[in-house]
């Protein structure tokens, strides 16, 4: 179920992110793509992403109290933070996840 961008163990990475999606809907696919791009740009080597498809495992929604999809949850570092939507606003995502943007 989990997709990890890098072969880094969960105990080491600073950012543990979980993205809840609903199958192949437009926003879900957009959210996955956006998240991967943002993480590669600003968190290279420091993150792990889990994508959870709620159409297949709706019961997983309970753990993070998910109401709307897509929703991104930052599991680590604490505290837990949520961002609802397809993550197309990069700035909002960075602010929501407390990530200092890397300027090229």
């Amino acid at each position, binding site marked *: 179920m989990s997709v990890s961008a890098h072969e880094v163990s969960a105990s080491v990475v600073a950012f543990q992110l979980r993205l809840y*999606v*609903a*199958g192949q*809907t*437009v*926003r*879900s696919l957009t959210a996955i793509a956006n998240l991967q791009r943002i993480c590669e740009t600003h968190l290279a080597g420091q993150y792990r992403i889990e994508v959870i498809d*709620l*159409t297949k495992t*709706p*019961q997983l*929604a*309970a753990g993070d109290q*998910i*109401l*709307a*999809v*897509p929703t991104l949850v930052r599991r680590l570092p604490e505290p837990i933070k*949520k961002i*609802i*939507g*397809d993550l197309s606003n990069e700035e909002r995502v960075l602010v929501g996840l407390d990530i200092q943007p890397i300027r090229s």
Partner: protein
Amino acid sequence: MEETLHAIRSGQVDALVVEGNDGPQIYTLQGLDAETNRFRGAILDQVNDAVIAVNHENCIIYLNSAAERLYGVTISKALGQTLPQIYNCRWGHEDDEAAAMTALLERGEWRGENVHIRRDGIEINAESSITVLRDVSGQSTGILSVIRDVTERKCSENKVLVSEIRYRRLFETAHDGVLLLNPATREIIDANPFMTEMLGYSHRQLVGKELFEIGLLKDEAASQEMVRKLSRTNQVRYDDLPLKGTGGQLHEVEVVANLYDEGGLPVIQCNVRDITARKRSEEQVRLLMAEVNHRAKNLLAVVLAVAQQTAKYGDLPSYVKRLSDRIDGLAAGQDLLVRNLWQGVEVSDLVKAQLAHFEDLIGTRILMHGPCVQLTAAAAQGVGMALHELATNASKYGALSNFEGQVHISWRVTAAAKPGFSMSWTESGGPRVVEPVRKGFGQVIIGRMAEASVLGTAEIRFHEEGLSWTLNAAAENVLTGRNQNESAQGDA
């Protein structure tokens, strides 16, 4: 929850998780299956925004309780009706409606503002978010509108706008100069038209300058001092500041500077009043008062002199009578001068005023002949006093002391390279005249005093048939400028 609703409204979400009896269930927002609708009903009823869904025939298939309240309808009546049966739209610009249709067709959604007019005529400023509903195959099945009532916000926006227009107009049309300054930089940030006109600087030239740069304060230190004072007292006032415009014209101004808070930001407002005209009129009044004082004192000095001289020449029992007569004459002359704003006196008016006691005889026993000319104030006083003395004398001893005597008074302007003014008083038909042995003050008045007042010569002759008096002077010393060249002769 607010965040979730916002995400739904703004189209960021396309699936929802609802806790059911069997645990969480996922509803995608694509398509209009019964489950989704049920879910929407549950969620959307909690929303403050009105939500209305219509099918492809524009019939209402869903509306939430906020929509019922907003449009004043009930679900039972509204379902199945078309939107125009609930409300009509009015668009801000005629192109807006077409643009909304295009957006719905091309992108499947539109967001914007327009006015919804309810069936009962109430108007609602609506901020709508409209999405095309599609079934699983992607076919359009209708549209979903989320409508927020922004009437109140619009109202207050409108109030702010009206207020802005009103106070802007005050600023633009004020007859005081108004300057707004940034206290931190002390630079002008705005100036009204009156200010730019007063100084001759354009608005652009004024903005960014400090007060001392436009000559309002003498130097930078004065500017700093003003801001320092303002921060302590909130108001600083300057009377009588000289202010030079670009054209070099000097204004005297009064400046009141206030420190205000504009939504957390300090601003200095300077009201600059042009008091040049007020100062000028104060100066005129001051000069006028000085002149009045001077003339009054001069007249008192004359009265004192007349009193002394009158006492010197006559007997004591008749003193009060003689002095009163002379003061009457002075008063009559004074009236005439004031009536003519001290500019000069018509000769015929002067004669009538000094002979006011003999009004009934004018035209019968007192005959006047002469052109319409004006004597200067100084000449009028001297000639007036002489005429008064002559009349008093005639009524005591001369042509006006019996019932048949006559007095001819005539004056003329002689046409010559240097025009002259000549006036005569000729008595006839009175008692036989005997030249007095002793000269009285009256003779001084009609003699050397009259001469001095016209810078001319006076001649008195005691003919047996009556007294005659002639006065000759250069017209330029006697007449006001406007009639020196007048040569027309006529009966006055």
